[in-house]
């Protein structure tokens, strides 16, 4: 850790007159887990879509591993994304979903073995030939993860990946995602509305409001040294959340 993986400089984006992102700048370190928190409509998804190349910014630079990637098509940016509602290919089996992109990129023998490995890794070996609709929400989420990992991205973006799941499944998936991150050495940018989740999983948290970054810091610092009134309100509002997660931390530590 410590190496600069991604640098975003003065990114601005507007839809018509709606200034969704205003001069956003931040950096992400290699292997870091960065969460993005913020009220609905503050531009979280838009930011990720710009990083991925699905949307273009009016101005600003995106530098990954020292190279400006703003002009590259999405697939060449070395980033993967897990979308809201997973966006699985409903007509394909679990195996089909995971190996599809690999096959399309050539080398179908390799594709099969890579896909099987990944599916094994996310614990779905028993469901290879099932269709997404025959899976539970958590299982579908795992397929989406495996599909994203298949093309071997070094940064993974997740947009509210667990919003549709029940609490138990979420808790289980949390540690799985963290384990996968460790194993693949990926850098993760993670959008969530669940502050407790953000506090529990992240190295750093970025709080956005009205297209501006209010503060980007470790969960600890966010609580101890709020940068402004907005963050203070935000944190006090979640005092309960903080206590809960602290308790959980200490439990996990044991």
């Amino acid at each position, binding site marked *: 850790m410590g190496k600069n993986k991604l640098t975003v400089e003065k990114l601005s984006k507007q839809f018509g007159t709606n200034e969704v992102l205003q001069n956003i700048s931040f950096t992400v370190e290699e292997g870091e887990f960065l969460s993005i928190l913020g009220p609905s409509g503050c531009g979280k998804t838009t930011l990720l*879509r710009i990083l*991925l*190349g*699905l949307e*273009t910014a009016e101005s600003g630079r995106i530098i990954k591993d020292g190279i400006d990637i703003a002009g590259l*098509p*999405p*697939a*060449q940016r070395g*980033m*993967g*994304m897990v*979308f*809201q*509602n*997973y*966006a*699985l*290919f*409903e*007509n*394909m089996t679990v195996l089909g979903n995971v190996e*599809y*992109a690999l096959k*399309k*990129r050539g080398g179908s023998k390799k594709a099969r073995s890579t896909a099987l490995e990944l599916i094994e890794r996310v614990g779905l070996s028993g469901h290879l030939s*099932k*269709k997404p*609709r*025959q899976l539970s929400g958590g299982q579908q989420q795992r397929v989406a993860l495996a*599909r*994203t990992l*298949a*093309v071997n991205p070094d940064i993974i973006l997740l947009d509210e990946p667990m919003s549709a799941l029940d609490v138990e499944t979420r808790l289980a998936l949390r540690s799985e995602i963290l384990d996968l991150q460790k194993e693949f050495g990926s850098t993760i940018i993670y959008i969530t509305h669940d502050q407790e989740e953000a506090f529990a999983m992240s190295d750093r948290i970025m709080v956005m409001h009205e297209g501006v970054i209010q503060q980007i810091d470790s969960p600890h610092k966010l609580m101890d040294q709020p940068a402004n009134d907005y963050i203070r309100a935000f944190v006090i509002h979640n005092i309960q959340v903080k206590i809960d997660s602290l308790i959980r931390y200490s439990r996990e530590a044991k």
Partner: protein
Amino acid sequence: MKTSGKLTAVKGLLLIFFAVSVLLPLLRMLARMTTVDIRGLLVSGPFLAALKNSLVVTAVSTLIAVFLATLLSWLLERSRIRFKGLFALLFTLPMLIPSISHGMGLVVLFGANGLVTGWFGLKGSIYGFWGIVAGSVMYSFPVAFLMLSDILRYEDSSPYEAADVMGISRRHQFASITAPFLRRPMLSTLFAVFTLIIIDYGVPLMVGGQYKTLPVMMYQDVIGLLDFGKGSVIGLVLLTPALVAFILDVLNRDKLTLSFVARPFRVRKNRLRDGLAYVTSGLVSLAVLLPIAAFLLLTLVKKYPSDMRLSMDNISRAFNMGAGANLGHSLVIALVTSLTGVALSFLVAYMTARTPGKLSKILHLVSLISLAIPGIVLGLSYVLFFKGSLIYGSLAILILVNLVHFFASPYLMIYNTLAKLNEHLEAVGQTLGVSRISIIRDVILPQAGGTLAEMFTYFFVNSMMTISAVAFLATAGTRPLSLMITSFEAQMLLECAAFIALLILTVNLLVKGLFTYYRSRKERSAYEPDQAAV
């Protein structure tokens, strides 16, 4: 971005296509309207009387048709009777023959000297209000039946199970679960049926008697008096219900995806209900089969009713007059219309449902216009616009006019299907390095298969039946089979007309059968939730 440039180009091309095939011809026709005293027409006595007649007869027919359809779809979906597939097929038979034939069927059965009238010594006359109602219910109720069956089939049973557990009475369950669930689809069904009936002139022309409706007035102005302008004005008036339906639809569109967790209903034993279901379904099947049996009888006797000896005269006469060749034309027209129609509506719907932007909205609107253009107006505007052009007088113009005439419904079917698929599929493709075309071919098309087949059937069946728009565009070398019905009618050869109706029915039944087979196979193989898990 480059790709969005390409998308814009495709949308532009599509818009040009619609401009040439819909807007410009229509403008040519409407140019004739400038000479009409529109105000004077709209407040004239005959117009208002016809308007009132149209509204009343359409409202009554719509209510009856939708009531019947609700009852039957509920009985089929929520009872344990056997032969459900057969009944469902029978109920949709009337959709497969031209509406004018329904009028004919009524006359043959219930006219003053009709078969049924004769057997039962009935008094009274089929001509007039109730004649129109009977004929209209006949051909429109299948549409409502199909719409409502679909809705009921996918209703989630869990709220009912919960209610049962809580001991809530059946009547309360209906008021608090069923009624709210059915309100929206019921409204759409009512609107769809209303629109269908109010623009039809086939039935009122045959059995309307002195009860004159707006489409008949339009028909008589355009055809009887060559007053295209006045006819178009009435045509525009007839367009209103479709427009209202469209606006309501746009306002209420909820983009919520269907919940896939819907639990299928487990129907309990209930002798009384099942008995009722058998009786009702049987009666309606009989009502549907009677006219068809009458056509069969008419076809196979020498001269109804004076000479009832069996003979093949009518059939051979129809073939002597070109039924064979015309059947060939019809098949070519229907097949090419269906193939191009499915491809075009998929392309347009893909653009409007899955790529955002202003052009998409315009394209969506233009695609729906065709829903509201009466066939006569469309046909004549094609004559005005395309005369002298390369395609005029060829099969191509018949295909084009059918494509446009029947575009809106299949377009909406596929639009809804595509809008329901996860909106991020293409983005997923992009991040995985898979092109849009590949995603369409490997992910979207396979999921739209059932809808595509349904669209194909819709184009095909309607192209086989249509009369109004093609009447002005067909020539001896391209005449479709359906036009023989009107020319036989004009020459009082009812027997031959009945035979042609049967011929069309047979072809359409085959196509429809193939579709049903395809869909049931697909359903079994692909989308059913894991049976073992239920």
